[in-house]
């Protein structure tokens, strides 16, 4: 019914009665049309997945859902449920925020994207290898076996999170946002002051974490092989998700500076580097005099 018709109803008495009939007729038509449409929508919609609370409350879980719940617990309480392979104080949910459900915070809804080739190891990666590498780099731990129950449980959890996604298409908010070029190099010195202002309250003056936030560097944080150790990844993550409550409030240049500041801090070495090679390198540095700059130029 157009607004014109409405105004006519108010002005004219006979038309008003008629419009009352019209309203009844129209609403009946609407009902007759809407009910089947609603039913059709309900039928087309995917059946609901049980939430983690529902799963935890169930007395008996089959093998798959038992694994999903274990996977959720590993993601949220890594130090307790996957202590076998972790080496630091981080939990999966520290980066995959909200247990891997938040967009732009490396969501775990990516089961449909694997297997795929990754430049990181130059191999075609299944979801299993991807999870195992997280344990090695971000968790600074041990590479778990392919068939470790922990890996399979996290894989089951990722699959259950990816429910409803189109296979092979990147889900919305996958990974972290890519920041546009600011035209300036990241400056760790400026990053330091931004860190002191914005981050130190939760992550600690020395980046060793507090009750509220995980350690960002030091022996109990991720190692040099982790994705977070890359300035672009860390900057995108910080811009989109930090500080909590003030997301996207920092400028692109500020988060790049903070990421560069984090990059130069002490953290465990890249586990791909051979300890033997490092020893040889140290010994060479100790006992073989370095050629001085002048002789190099000549």
């Amino acid at each position, binding site marked *: 019914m157009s607004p014109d018709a409405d105004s006519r109803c108010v002005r004219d008495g006979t038309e008003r009665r008629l419009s009352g009939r019209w309203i009844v007729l129209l609403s009946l038509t609407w009902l007759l049309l809407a009910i089947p449409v609603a039913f059709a929508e309900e039928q087309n919609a995917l059946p609901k997945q049980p939430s983690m609370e529902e799963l935890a409350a169930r007395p008996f879980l089959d093998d798959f859902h038992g694994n999903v719940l274990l996977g959720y617990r590993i993601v949220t309480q890594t130090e307790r449920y996957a202590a076998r392979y972790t080496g630091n104080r981080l939990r999966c949910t520290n980066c995959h925020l909200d247990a891997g459900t938040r967009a732009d915070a490396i969501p775990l809804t990516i089961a449909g994207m694997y297997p795929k080739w990754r430049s990181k190891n130059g191999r075609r990666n299944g979801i299993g290898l991807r999870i195992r590498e997280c344990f090695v780099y971000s968790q600074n731990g041990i590479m778990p076996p392919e068939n470790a129950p922990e890996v399979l449980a996290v894989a089951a959890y990722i699959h259950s999170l990816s429910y409803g996604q189109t296979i092979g298409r990147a889900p919305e908010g996958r990974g972290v946002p890519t920041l546009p070029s600011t035209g300036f190099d990241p400056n760790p010195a400026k990053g330091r002051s931004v860190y002191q202002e914005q981050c130190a309250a939760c992550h600690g003056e020395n980046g060793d974490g507090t009750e509220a936030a995980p350690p960002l560097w030091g022996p109990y944080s991720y190692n040099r*092989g982790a994705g977070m150790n890359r300035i672009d990844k860390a900057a995108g993550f910080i811009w989109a998700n930090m500080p909590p409550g003030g997301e996207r409030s920092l400028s692109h240049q500020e988060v790049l500076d903070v990421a560069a500041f984090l990059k130069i801090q002490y953290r465990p070495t890249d586990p791909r580097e051979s300890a033997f090679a490092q020893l040889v390198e140290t010994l060479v540095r100790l006992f073989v005099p370095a050629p001085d700059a002048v002789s190099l130029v000549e």
Partner: protein
Amino acid sequence: MRFHWLNRGTLLREMVPDFRWLNRDLVWRHELFSGVIGAVLVIPQAITFAYLAGLPPEYGIYSAIYVTLFACLLGRSSIIGGPNTAVAILIGETVIRFAGRGSPLYIDAVLILSFEVGVIQLLIWLLRGGRLFQYFSPTVILGITTAVGAQIIFSSLEGLTGAVALDAPFFFQTFQTLANDWGHLVNAHAFAIGMITVICGWWFRIRGASYFLLAALVIGSLASAIIHFVTPQVITEVDLIGRLPFSPLPFSRPTWEWDTLMMAYEMLPAATTIAIIGLAQTMVIAKEINLSGRDRVDFHKETFAQGVANLLSAYFSGFAGSGSFNRTASNHDLKGRTPLPGIVSSVVVLVLAWNLGDLLAHIPMAVMAGVLFIVGLSMIKPAKIRSLWLIPREFILFLATFLTIIFLGLSSGVIMAAVLSLVPFLLGAARLDAKRVRMGPVVSLELYGNLFFASVDSLSERLHAVADRHLILNLRHVSFLDHGAAEFILQEQRRRDNASLKMVVFTHLSDHQSILETLDTNNELHVVSSLPEAREAMVGLS
């Protein structure tokens, strides 16, 4: 039927922990030392047996602590209980049908299975079934241990080669897969570490060192440490055990729900087999101790202790176990004479696992598989098998047991073994000899052997031969008469009565007489209790 064995005093005495061994003149030094060595020996076994059962390593450690502790506290002998190869294999074989290795449902199923095993063993204790296990013949036990050794070797191949998902229903498929795709499947680093472990361990074993497993473990781990110093683990991809999420009091509880009850119901036959094979091993050790005269083992008390320990293992994140041959032997070598070494060993394991977690974390699975390989290899005893070769009947028994286990699995194999153990005896028992004595028109048939359903056929043959004679059926040398055979005798009496031939049954055993009397409601049988009486009955016949 009288349950004369259900004597409350006896049961109570077996249930209550008995610490009288403290009063014996025990040498504390020997007992404590033996306990510490036992703890060091059990750790590699616990981890590898947990692997056999498809569980994370800490479950093996918990078993090594709590199953050993409860079994030793309640028992009275120097038998060391705890995780055991055959039991672990059986657990893995049973539970893999319900869930994937190490998944939450799998662990729940293992707890339920252990609980069931405990309950069944307590039932066996209540029914005085401890003696049942003397019916496993030594030949068949050799067949079982050899086959278990072979199975352990097969299951160690996956870890030894570093290949993943080698597990196949049949062992030859494992070999086939390995042979077909050797280059892709085998992790060269893991294989090297595994081979170093096996070769060093075996060398120590040949030299007669009782700590050969420990030596293998240490050398293998050192080799791995050197390899990983040069090439990082991320690149070699050698699987490590990982840090044990260890807790000193790991309480757990099997879930009792409708679905798990169905699972429990389906696992009952397997639980029975596990209960029997576990007790059988404990009893074999007990028999050896009793024969050596060091100690007097009370079968029933040990059965009770084993049952309670397995039942409680479900509440301490463990899995069922049994008496251990090798650890008991080591205990005896070190002059352990009481349950004290077992108790000490479980306490030491607890302390070690609590403190050495980070050290254990870097032991590769390949080293564990190497240890497993040595365990399997040392369970196969060629000298004993060769000695059986000379007795064809025994060798066939051995081979039948061995092949059944290899091809049909341990649980079917054990049932087969129990049947096979009795076959030679049963074949002999069904044989009936008869001596025929002619006394004029009367024939006296003197029977030798057992009269039961299986020997009726043989009896009817003998009776047929004297079908047209008056008969004295002499049961003096028959030690066993069952219902089936008694009925047959009654029919024979009727047949002879119809043919107006006389028949007298002579037996002096009241058991036989009462069976015959119960059956003979119409008073047709002519039973006498002495030979002169029988002769008297036959007077005047022509």
